[in-house]
C-alpha cells in the first residue's frame, strides 16, 4: 500500500471526484480529494502528492493560480489541468502544467497522461 503513487484530485464537482477516484483507484493509485484551491494547497503542503489533476473553474482561487503556487514550490511536480472548457488555453499561466486535457466521458487521454508522468 505504501508504495502506491499518490494523486491529488482537485475538483469542486462531486460527480467528477467519484468517477475519477474510482477509475484511478482501480488503476492502483492512491487518490486524495480537494474541493477547492485553498484546500488543495493545504493538502499539497501537508502530504506531498506524486501528481495533481487540477480543475480550473472553481469557486475562490482558480486552478491556474493554484498551479502557479504549487509549481513555485515544486517545479518538477507533474500537474494535469482538467477542464470542461477550452478557452483557458488562452491564459499562458496554463503553460506551467504538463498537460491541458478537456474533460470527456472517455477518460483514455487523462489515464494515458497520468501513466506517462507516474511511470517516468
Amino acid at each position, binding site marked *: 500500500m505504501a508504495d502506491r503513487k499518490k494523486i491529488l484530485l482537485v475538483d469542486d464537482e462531486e460527480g467528477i471526484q467519484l468517477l475519477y477516484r474510482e477509475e484511478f483507484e482501480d488503476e492502483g493509485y492512491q487518490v486524495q480529494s480537494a474541493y477547492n484551491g485553498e484546500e488543495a494547497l493545504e493538502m499539497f503542503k501537508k502530504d506531498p502528492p506524486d501528481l495533481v489533476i487540477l480543475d480550473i473553474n472553481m469557486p475562490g482561487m482558480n486552478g491556474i493560480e493554484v498551479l502557479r503556487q504549487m*509549481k513555485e514550490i515544486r517545479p518538477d511536480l507533474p500537474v494535469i489541468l482538467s477542464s470542461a472548457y477550452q478557452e483557458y*488555453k488562452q*491564459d*499562458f*499561466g496554463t*503553460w506551467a502544467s504538463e498537460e491541458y486535457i478537456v474533460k470527456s466521458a472517455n477518460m483514455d487521454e487523462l489515464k494515458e497522461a497520468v501513466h506517462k508522468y507516474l511511470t517516468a
Partner: protein
Amino acid sequence: MPELRKDPILGRWIIIARERGKRPTDFIVEDVETKGGFCPLCPGNEKTTPPEVLVYGREPGMPPNSSSWQLRVVPNKYPALVIEGELDKQGEGLYDRMNGIGAHEVIIESPRHEDRFAYLPHEQMILTFRAFQERIRDLSKDPRFRYVMVFKNYGKAAGASLEHSHSQLVALPVLPRMVVSELDGSLSYFKYKDRCIFCDIIRQEIQQDVRLVCENREFVTLTPFAPRTPFEMWIMPRRHNSSYTEQNEDSLSALTDIFSETLRRLDACIPGIPYNFVLHTQPLRSQPLEHYHWHFEIVPKVTSIAGFEWGSGFYINPMPPEDACRYLREVEL
C-alpha cells in the same frame, strides 16, 4: 454637442461624446494585479515552453533552450490553431470551411519578469521589433499562410494573462476582415487620387499639428481623427512603404525610440493603463503596394464595448483626439 466622425480609410463612423472637463485622471484603471507564483516565461523554466523558434542573446556555447537569453520566441504550448496538416478547403452550400491551420507564437520580450515593455532599455526593446521581422519573414515561406498578425496585450483588461512582458503573433491561412477593409479602403482612395491615403494623413497631420503627439526623423505618432477609444494612437513611418519587414536596422532603431516615447507618454497620462497594439502590414508575399502603408495602432482599454457598439460598429469615445493629443504632448516624461 456630440460629433460624428468618419475614419477616411475604413469609412467607419465613431461618436465623440464630449464631456466637459474630461481629464486623463477621470478614467478608472484597475490596479495591475500581480498574482505571483511560478512563471513559465522566466529564465530557468524553459522546459515548460515548447522549444524556441528564435532566440537572441544566448551566450556562445550554451545549448538551445537553456537559461541565458535576452529574447525568446516559442510556439504556443496550447494553440488554438495547429501547424501540422493541410488546409483542406471545402464548401458546404454557401458556407466555407477549412482545417484550423495556423502558427501561434509568443515573443518573450525580456528575461526579467518585472520589466514593462514601455520602459525597456533601447537595446532590449529593439530585439522585439527585430523578432517580429524575422518571424514574419520565416512564416512567409509557408505557402499555407497569407497573413501574420502581430499584437501585444498589456494589462488584464486588454487580455494579458501573465505579467511577464510578451507579445504574440498568429500566422493565418486567410486575410482578416480588418486587413481586407484597410487594403480596400486605401486602394479606393488611391484609384481616385493617385496618392497613398496614409501619406496624405501624415502630411496633413504634420501641417495642422493638432493631433501630432511626437515625431522623430523616421516616424510620427498621432491620435487619429476618428479614434475608437480615448488615447488611441498610430505610429507611422514618414516614408512610404507597405511592408514592415522591409525596414532596415536604422529604421528599427527610430521605431524603438518613438514606441518607447509614445508608450511612456500614455503611461504618464494614465498610469498602468491597459492597451493593445497591433502591427498593420501588407499580406505575405505581396508585391510592394503603392496604396498601403504599414503602421502600428495602439488602442488603450479605458472604455467598454456594449450593445450599441456591437450592433452599429460605431464606437463611442468620450475624449476628442485633439484633447488626448494635448495631454499626451504636455505630460512630463
